[in-house]
């Protein structure tokens, strides 16, 4: 579609950043669609690996775009993808922060806020679906997903322990 991957990266992620209500987790399906299915930048497996790396590295999870960018076009790709994903939304955040207090009680603002919650819920559920399809290739991986879902829902355990357990089980060769 586009000869220069940097332009494609910038365009897709800048657009995506404005529609990702609910943050990085809501944007996963669209990133997957673009990177794996439309542009064929990476395989399903590489996408799932990038997600795993972004989860265990410190910092915002949106950093997955840095990994995708690097995979596509090296350091320049990483820089462009990250800037595109954060730039537009940062400008918006800066502008809105100045006027926010004035509209705090406005009815339209409350309606927008309430209206966006179910949309982002659906998007995050879609993320879980897309990732499960990429990662859970056998019954053991699916079992890990199911168990962590229950543990994550019922307890407030630090996610790093869960990731460590998942990594060790993965290494043990069951998956």
């Amino acid at each position, binding site marked *: 579609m586009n000869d220069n991957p940097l332009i494609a990266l910038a365009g897709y992620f800048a657009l995506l*950043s*404005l*529609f*990702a209500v*609910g*943050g990085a*987790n809501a944007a996963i*399906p*669209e990133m997957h*669609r673009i990177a794996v299915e439309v542009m064929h930048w990476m395989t399903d*497996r*590489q996408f799932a*690996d990038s997600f*795993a*790396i972004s*989860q265990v590295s410190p*910092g*915002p*999870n*949106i950093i997955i775009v840095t990994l995708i960018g*690097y*995979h596509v076009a090296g350091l320049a790709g*990483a820089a462009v993808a*990250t800037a595109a994903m954060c730039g*537009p*939304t*940062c400008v*918006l*955040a*800066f502008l809105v922060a100045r006027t926010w207090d004035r509209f*705090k009680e406005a009815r*339209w603002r*409350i*309606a*927008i806020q*309430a*209206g*966006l*919650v*179910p*949309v982002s*819920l*659906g998007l995050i*559920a*879609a993320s879980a679906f897309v*990732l*499960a399809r990429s*990662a859970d290739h056998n019954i053991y*991986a699916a079992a890990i997903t199911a168990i*962590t*879902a229950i*543990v*994550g*829902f019922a307890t407030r355990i630090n996610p790093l322990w*869960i*990731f460590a*357990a998942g*990594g060790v089980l993965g*290494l043990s060769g069951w*998956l």
Partner: protein
Amino acid sequence: MIVSISGFGGALPWARRMIVEQRRWMTSEEFNEAFALSQFLPGPNVVNFSVVFGSRFGGVPGATIALAGLMGPPLIIVTILAVLYARYGDVEALGRILTGITAAATGLLIAVVAKMATPLFSKRWDWAPLIAIAAFIGVAIMQWPLPLVFLVLAPVSVACAWMTR
């Protein structure tokens, strides 16, 4: 002062402890207010939060410094990881570890969905669950582009929220 944000990118509870309890840069209410705003905006929440927080203190320079403090160190780390993955991604053991982590992280995401859905679905039957299910089907099953799904569903959902209040 904002340089000390560096260490804990991503972990909002830590950010809260430092900003509200240790440094007293914001009151608890100001923090919640800024956090609600950054969730309301599209894009990464933590990034939005750093911009909102930084701009309160120092306008454009404040926002820039806060953002750089948040993103700088993680970006360096993740770039190193990206280089390592490019070189060793084919190693079988590493692939197995990452598959295990993805399976576990997916489970945690399902837990997040369940926690978000509980208040939404426990009310009497109304529009919100329908919107959530429609968004899920559009993006996950039909694999339609996110902007398209968003531009159709968000106005409907906001209109429903407007009417029911």
